[in-house]
């Protein structure tokens, strides 16, 4: 597959790079793990195969051979050789056909994932194929994709097409008073914010500002105030941690976040809800829902359950002739 045009920031990502935090290497990885996992299940790929994450449109690519691919995530419309494509589905491309992902304001989500049979074939670096933008390694030469980049699939085309999934945003909705919600476990410095700020954090709506990317989401809302100035020692952090710099406007760490930080932490968006955040567009509003350890584990269990059922049904459809195009 050859990238024909992209406005930038499209990267190769798998679930991320684990085990190198102690060298200062953040995990990176797909912003929306659920969309990545679903794309791989649709194609029968192994868990954690690398796909292309596309956050900006239009993105145009050409298939140089007949191949199946899965399109998951959201935020765009899709056409292949002039045919409209359904989202969250497996499609079959003929050699020479062009895939166009174009802006579609009415479509929910903000990032699309393009999965190929066997995953995208880029070298594994420190145990992962994810692009480490800060370290300039992994993925396609450690950088975002550019026009002219050629990406191969690691597996042979299974010749599948014609089925997809109900998007998880529909199957697993989470709304707080009608606004998209994410669940948060309070973190170490929670009690050091004023009581009024703590109440406002849970009660208010937070706008995801335009200064939001794979590193972090900068939010705008009622400024959070500390009881007293807090100066901290550097410590490990993970994607989802909500840091509050002295200006009181929270920053949620995302997949390209540094593996350590020193701003006070209000809480952490649970891993099971990071995919919701990944698909919340800049300019949209979210709300935070307080949760705890056991309920967060149950949320992770619910996701696992959804993926397991998806996996079984995808296996089933590949067993039947239904998913096979003549």
């Amino acid at each position, binding site marked *: 597959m050859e990238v024909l045009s992209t406005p930038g920031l499209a990267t190769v990502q798998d679930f991320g790079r684990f085990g190198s935090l102690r060298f200062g290497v953040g995990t990176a990885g797909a912003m929306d793990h659920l969309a990545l996992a679903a794309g791989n299940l649709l194609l029968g790929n192994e868990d954690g195969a690398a796909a292309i994450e596309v956050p900006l449109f239009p993105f145009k690519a050409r298939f140089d051979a007949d191949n199946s691919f899965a399109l998951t995530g*959201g935020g765009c419309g899709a056409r292949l050789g*002039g*045919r*409209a494509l*359904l*989202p*969250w*589905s497996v499609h079959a491309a003929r050699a020479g056909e062009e895939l166009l992902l174009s802006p579609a304001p*009415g*479509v*929910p*989500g903000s990032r699309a994932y393009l999965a190929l049979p066997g995953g995208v074939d880029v070298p594994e670096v420190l145990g992962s194929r994810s692009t480490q933008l800060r370290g300039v390694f992994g993925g396609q030469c450690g950088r975002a994709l550019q026009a002219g980049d050629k990406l191969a699939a690691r597996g042979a085309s299974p010749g599948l097409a*014609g*089925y*997809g*999934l*109900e*998007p998880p*945003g*529909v*199957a697993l909705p989470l709304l707080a008073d009608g606004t998209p919600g994410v669940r948060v476990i309070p973190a170490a410095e929670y009690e050091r914010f004023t009581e009024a700020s703590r109440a406002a954090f849970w009660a208010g709506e937070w706008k995801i500002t335009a200064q939001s990317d794979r590193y972090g989401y900068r939010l705008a809302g009622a400024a959070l105030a500390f009881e007293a100035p807090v100066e901290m020692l550097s410590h490990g952090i993970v994607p989802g941690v909500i840091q509050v710099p002295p200006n009181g406007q929270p920053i949620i760490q995302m997949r390209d976040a540094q593996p350590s930080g020193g701003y006070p932490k209000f809480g952490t968006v649970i891993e099971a809800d990071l995919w919701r955040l990944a698909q919340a567009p800049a300019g949209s509003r979210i709300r935070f829902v307080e949760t705890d350890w056991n309920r967060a584990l149950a949320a992770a269990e619910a996701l696992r359950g*959804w993926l*397991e*059922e*998806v996996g*079984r*049904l*995808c*296996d*089933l*459809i590949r*067993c*039947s*002739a*239904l998913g096979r195009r003549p």
Partner: protein
Amino acid sequence: MTAAERVRVLSETLEGTSIGLLELTTPEETIRLRRGDTSHPPPLAAIEPSMRAHPPGLVTAPCPGVFRTAHPAQDGPLAQAERHVAAGEAVGLVQVGPLLVHIAAPASGVVGEVLAENGATVGYGTPLLRLQEERA
């Protein structure tokens, strides 16, 4: 894979899904699996390939499930009278648990009468809509 092996694989696959009944038809054989647990809700779906011919212009369900006239993540219906579609584009969906099986237009054309209602439970071969094919 022998028939016995296929039955074993399918049984394992069925385990843990919301599907209570599975019917798989291939050119060689038809396999029917049903859960032992009779208290299980009625089968959401069984899956079998579209092997039988039907009248030209009539689009039928490729498998049992719930007919969807629109995709949940897209504006505008797929199955709507007078909608123009290119060959291969979806004119509707059959939902089987979390799966959405595409109903692809066999040729370019215009959607005519939509025969099944959105949300209707359909069986294999249930007429869904008519498609007026355009001559190439």
